């Protein structure tokens, strides 16, 4: 019998280096960024709404998606072992990684064993999470992103700001500038027409695909009963990576499991409509171990925990592991639209990031993220697997370390409000105390409001007038009836 061990927290690019409000400040002030995000999120939001509205059984599909994921979470250890057995039987080698560092070590060692000094990459959140490119670079291995938006971000020495559209924060003029500066084989007369930009990237990447011997991918789904991995994409660049090189290494978070192949029916309907707003994505690649004489002959799967077991251990927070990385929640989030993805300090931005990152790292390490939401609920409405994001945000706020002054104020207020007698007295005191000031403001400005207050109330009055207590509270009016 092995002793139970407390699940370890995750590492990698999932921690906010700065508190969210501080990190959001420059983004809010950047009018170009705000305009780019406004245009992009609203376009994709409208596309999603159109293709979701045309599905009569959308709510039933969401329920099915949520139920399958809940089932996976209930019996994850069993399903993982089943996946390992099926994939191994099909000729793949399955590796297990507790955290980011272990996963990176495995991928580096496999690449070195293949004798390669470069890899081509399929767009993958898991490899961004574990900071694989940095680990490969440190080992003298060049990693080439082949997803167009990932390529833009990589050439710009930047990090992704969106789960689906990593370069959403750039407009096409900015992308043209990055290509001209960093892509040696870009045409000299490159325009900022999307077709011209895509063609330049296509020519650039084609050479990479033909020379690469090792590819690294993630996976959207890992099917336990067959050992199949699935990558869903739009461009076909993923398909190139998944079929041309000799060695294929896939880094897969343990939560990506699905029990059976037929479960894909549900998710291949939910995912494209929720993410790109398409009825079906152009390329869905599936592979099961090795097929002799066809595609990669050396196939590896690295199953990564990196904090996921800790999430699984929390029954309220656990549904965060149901996420299929569609990014519909980002595209409807009014906070994401103003703050941008980088403010979340993690590869997982937006509402899902605000509940996933703090759970992967432990809430204390990402304490500002559960508060990076107004709890407006727009994310919950669009989530294809019905993750109640506002509920989990509130749950995580209970665990967050609270500032001492705030805690003291909240305790005093609670002490007052738990007693009808003290509350009535406090109302009277506030009304009487503010009376002369209210009367003065009303004479001077015609309104019982304040325009400027010292810190911390300045956080309110910098952009809004603050109403003062009324000359008569409601209960005083009622008492006079």
């Amino acid at each position, binding site marked *: 019998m092995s002793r139970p061990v407390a699940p370890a927290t995750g590492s990698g690019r999932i921690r906010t280096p700065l508190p969210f*409000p501080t990190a*959001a*400040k420059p983004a*809010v002030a950047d009018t170009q960024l705000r305009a780019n995000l406004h245009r992009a999120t609203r376009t994709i939001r409208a596309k999603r709404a159109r293709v979701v509205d045309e599905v009569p059984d959308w709510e039933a599909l969401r329920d099915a998606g949520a139920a399958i994921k809940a089932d996976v979470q209930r019996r994850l250890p069993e399903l993982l072992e089943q996946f390992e057995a099926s994939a191994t039987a099909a000729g793949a080698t399955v590796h297990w990684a507790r955290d980011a560092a272990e996963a990176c070590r495995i991928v580096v060692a496999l690449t070195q064993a293949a004798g390669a000094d470069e890899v081509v990459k399929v767009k993958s959140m898991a490899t961004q999470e574990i900071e694989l490119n940095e680990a490969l670079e440190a080992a003298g291995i060049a990693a080439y992103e082949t997803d167009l938006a990932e390529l833009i971000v990589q050439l710009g020495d930047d990090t992704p700001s969106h789960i689906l559209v990593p370069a959403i924060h750039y407009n096409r003029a900015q992308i043209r500038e990055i290509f001209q500066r960093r892509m040696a084989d870009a045409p000299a007369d490159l325009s900022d027409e999307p077709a011209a930009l895509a063609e330049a990237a296509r020519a650039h990447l084609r050479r990479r695909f033909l020379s690469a011997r090792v590819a690294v991918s993630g996976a959207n789904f890992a099917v336990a009963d067959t050992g199949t991995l699935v990558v869903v994409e739009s461009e076909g660049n993923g398909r190139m990576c998944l079929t041309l090189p000799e060695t294929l290494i896939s880094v897969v978070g343990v939560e990506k499991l699905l029990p059976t192949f037929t479960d894909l029916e549900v998710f291949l309907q939910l995912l494209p409509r929720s993410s790109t707003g398409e009825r079906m994505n152009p390329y869905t690649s599936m592979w099961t171990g090795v097929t002799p004489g066809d595609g990669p002959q050396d196939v590896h799967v690295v199953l990564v925990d990196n904090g996921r077991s800790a999430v699984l251990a929390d029954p309220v927070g656990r549904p965060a592991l149901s996420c299929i990385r569609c990014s519909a929640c980002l595209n409807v989030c*009014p*906070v994401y639209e*103003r*703050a941008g993805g980088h403010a979340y300090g993690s590869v997982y931005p937006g509402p899902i990031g605000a509940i996933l990152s703090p759970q992967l790292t432990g809430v204390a390490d990402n304490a500002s993220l*559960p*508060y*990076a*939401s*107004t*709890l*407006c*609920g*727009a994310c*919950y*409405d669009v989530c294809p697997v019905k993750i109640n994001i506002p509920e989990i945000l*509130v749950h995580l*706020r*209970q*665990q*967050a370390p*609270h500032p001492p002054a*705030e*805690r003291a104020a*909240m*305790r005093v*207020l*609670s002490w007052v*409000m*738990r*007693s*009808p007698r003290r*509350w*009535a007295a406090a*109302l009277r005191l*506030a*009304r009487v105390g503010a009376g002369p000031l209210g009367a003065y403001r009303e004479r001077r400005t015609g*309104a019982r*409001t304040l*325009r400027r207050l010292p810190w911390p109330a300045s*956080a*309110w009055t*910098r*952009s*809004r*007038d*603050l*109403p*003062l*207590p*009324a000359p008569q*509270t*409601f*209960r*005083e*009016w*009622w008492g006079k009836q």
Partner: protein
Amino acid sequence: MRIALFITCVNDLAFPATGIAVTRILRRLGHTVDFPADQTCCGQMHANTGYRAEAMPMVRNYVDVFDSYDAIVAPSGSCTAMIRDQYPHLHPPATSVAARTYELSELLVDVLGVTDVGAEFRETVTYHPTCHGLRMLRLGDRPLTLLRQVRGIKLVELGDAEECCGFGGTFALKNPDVSTAMLTDKCARVRDTGARVLAAADNSCLAHIGGGLDRHRSGVRAVHYAEILAETGATS
């Protein structure tokens, strides 16, 4: 039917006109309204900011104060959502009283079966559906159904109406930059309508949007929709 008024803490102190309006509407419709004086706060601010333990005494007080009434009406979508959505999980004995707690438009339309409350209000009005009423209570068009029956009113549609105003309780203080950016856009959409009055179901959101509209001297007045429904055109 014994109807109790849960006025909410913010309304009691800063927006008594809203509670007065609710009282007048219900009396005009022939109902008796009670205001149990021992009520305090629903505990939403504490619970949603991460102080659930500190919210619990308020939750229990709510049950003590309101459990004997047939219906409880609150002029706040957000406080009603706190009670209906969170109370049953926080404190199972609150399940029954939570189910009998209604936002004003729910009480009028669903429980009392009224859409015309006999109001008259000669202004151009735009309506902002606040988030918790919209997405937690699913109020739908109940408030607008009531407003459409008001004589003399001119209702104009608000652009991006269903987008959050950026208040979010303590969010407004913890994330002032993002909150202000959202507020600026909401105020712009309100001003685009040309309305002279902005109505909503939550005075906390209205204090935020109205505070922004006042700061920019927009001339748009932010009022709880109950105050419009209470108007009869007669000089009081």
